[in-house]
């Protein structure tokens, strides 16, 4: 409903996922959430649970081991949702670009709404990114958003819509 859409930006709940980061950006995210920068004044809660989140904060260049989890978490966040790629690695692969075990950025797998540069990025930048993401969140619809790779199926079982296999497992020969 139109009335409730206005409240999306007043209560952004965050899911933070480390897709193989060196922990530099993660520390900055936690700094932004901590008392000094006090992200909670925007109504932000770090939920740690995809099912109750609006903003997906990802750090790291997406290692081979982490991509299944990345897509699984992404598909468990109910729409509308936005994805923020925090740090250079997450945007492009950063210093890990071209290595045998990384995927050069999360936009290979899932659609990204805001990119945050920096190695590591700063709390101020992260707060900026979240505020920017909130603007995007307001314009989104409730349509199902799909990952680019590892995308399984959305099936109707009886009258129920099943998202059980929306994120598929990596097949063995792909590794």
């Amino acid at each position, binding site marked *: 409903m139109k009335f409730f859409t206005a409240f999306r930006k007043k209560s952004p709940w965050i899911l933070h996922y480390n897709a193989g980061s060196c922990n530099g950006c993660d520390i900055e995210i936690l700094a932004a959430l901590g008392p000094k920068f006090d992200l909670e004044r925007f109504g932000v809660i770090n939920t740690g*649970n995809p099912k109750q989140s609006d903003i997906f904060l990802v750090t790291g260049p997406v290692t081979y081991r982490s991509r299944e989890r990345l897509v699984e978490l992404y598909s468990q966040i109910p729409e509308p949702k936005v994805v923020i790629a925090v740090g250079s690695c997450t945007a492009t692969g950063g210093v890990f670009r071209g290595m045998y075990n990384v995927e050069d950025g999360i936009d290979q797998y899932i659609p990204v709404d805001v990119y945050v540069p920096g190695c590591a990025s700063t709390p101020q930048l992260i707060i900026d990114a979240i505020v920017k993401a909130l603007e995007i969140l307001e314009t989104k619809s409730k349509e199902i958003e799909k990952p680019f790779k590892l995308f399984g199926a959305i099936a109707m*079982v009886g009258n*129920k*819509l099943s*998202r059980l296999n929306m994120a598929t497992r990596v097949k063995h020969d792909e590794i």
Partner: protein
Amino acid sequence: MLLTLILLPIATAFLTLFSSKRMQYFLSGAVLAIGSYQSIVLFTSAENMSFHLSSLFNTVIIAADIILLLYFLYQGTKHNSSKVIVLAVVQLVLFLYIEHAASSGHSAQVVVDGLSKYTMEYDISSGHSAEIVVDGLSKFMFLIINIVGGIIVLYSVRYMEDEEATLRKKQLFIAGMFLFLSVMNAIVCANSLMLFFFLFEMTTLASYQLIAFRNDELSRTNALRALWMNQIGGAVILAGALIALRSANTLMFDTLLQHSGGMLLLALALLSMSALVKGASVPFDSWLLGAMVAPTPVSAMLHSATMVKIAPYLILKLAPVLGTTLLGGVLSIIGALVFVAASYLALSRSVFKEILGYSTVALLGLMMALAAIGTKETMMLAMVLMLFHALSKALLFLAAGVLEKQYHLKSIEEMSALVHRAPKTVGYIVLGFVSLTLPPFGLFVGKLFAITSVASLLRERPLLVIVLVSMVVGSALLVLLYFKVSSALLSNPSDTLSAERERIPYGYNIPLIFLTLLIVGSGAGFIIIQHNVLLALLAVPLTFVFVLPRVMRGMERYDRTDPYHCGEKEPFDAALVYFEPSVRVKRMIYWSFTLLFVSVAVIGGLS
């Protein structure tokens, strides 16, 4: 009418020995119908009845008693159990001595009235009361025994089909169940201590035989343990009878209770000790736990729904005198502590039937505690708890039998996600748990009133604070226990995954449906009888069950998704929680309960 209740099961037992499967269903159905009808008619009729037994009949019982004790002696020598032998010898000596003393002192006690002829009042002129007296309490027990017991017998016919045994053995089993019904019907109206002793030993025999039914090593050891522990109960009854005879010069319950002074309290203490043994209160809990190796109908009938109810029954019978005495106080404290201890010990078990067994021990403790307090209200509540406990536990045990026979499951560790495979059986089990713990079901309401009435007695008897706290803590522990078990059963994957429809065979399902209806019906009836508007309102939250189908259809519009596993694709389960007391603590618990048990006799003797 009473004759029907006692003789009909005996007659059917004989018929069962020669009948086919179909005939057995018919017979057990008939016994259930007639027994329930008769007990309801009896329950609604107002007057008390009493019967005299002819001297011939008394002699027969004496003979049977001696044979029974000799049989125990024989079993003791056969299985080389010194405890059984010693206790059997002790009982024999006591028994013969009492019979000798009674017959020499009371040669005039020849009552000619036959079994068929009964008088409506006590035969005061002869100076002796009748051997069989049917009062309100007995009528109430008939209800439990015949309705719940009847349903269990009906169930056991189907259960025996799945049991691996010879046809003859199966017939004997069902005949044994019928016989047991009649023994139970007789024991709750026995007014003579010696008759009571005989029937008490008969139930011990039934326990012994039926636990050993599967005849493997474990069954036999457990049966022997049940035998010697229950023999302690028999021995203390005899000791109590001896003291009653010496001090009050009577062997009848009612004259004994009217008597005062002397060693009366010691006699009562000894009798209530036998109740503690039969109710498997904590130092004796191992016999009831061991009894869980028996076929499930046995566990349901003997070791939960009916036979162990002799314990609170006996305390209730003695309660009018126990009430304000120190002895009554000690008994109620023991009962209450057993309630907590057994609930706690149950938390370390993983076999489903053992968990149910421990919770039976716990709730029997609670009933005995309430009965021993001895005010009119608490005695009524003890009876209410007995009825609802019998219904709920029967339901749970019968459902456990279905799990055992249909799914070959015994331990709750194996039952993970069972609701997906067996939604109906799990439904029955969860209903059983809910009816034991939550509003608006009968057992819950009983506990609620029990707290209220104990609280109202606190100012007069400050010691009851132990009972109150035990009741509160024990209930909480039982909630933990039941819902810990539910946690194993209930975890269900998404409802878009299809599962096979579960079919419970009719032979299993019909008794379960009966019990469910009885639980709901009697709980509602109890609330209505209370005339308590607030209490009825406790059931209001349940009304939302009626809109459920519509709501369920409405739920189809939401997306189904996997549970959260940290992004992993493989599901993983949480383990069950166990709370095991250390060996030292456990030993301490057992020793202190043994001390308390002995102190009953000491206090009875001193006061």
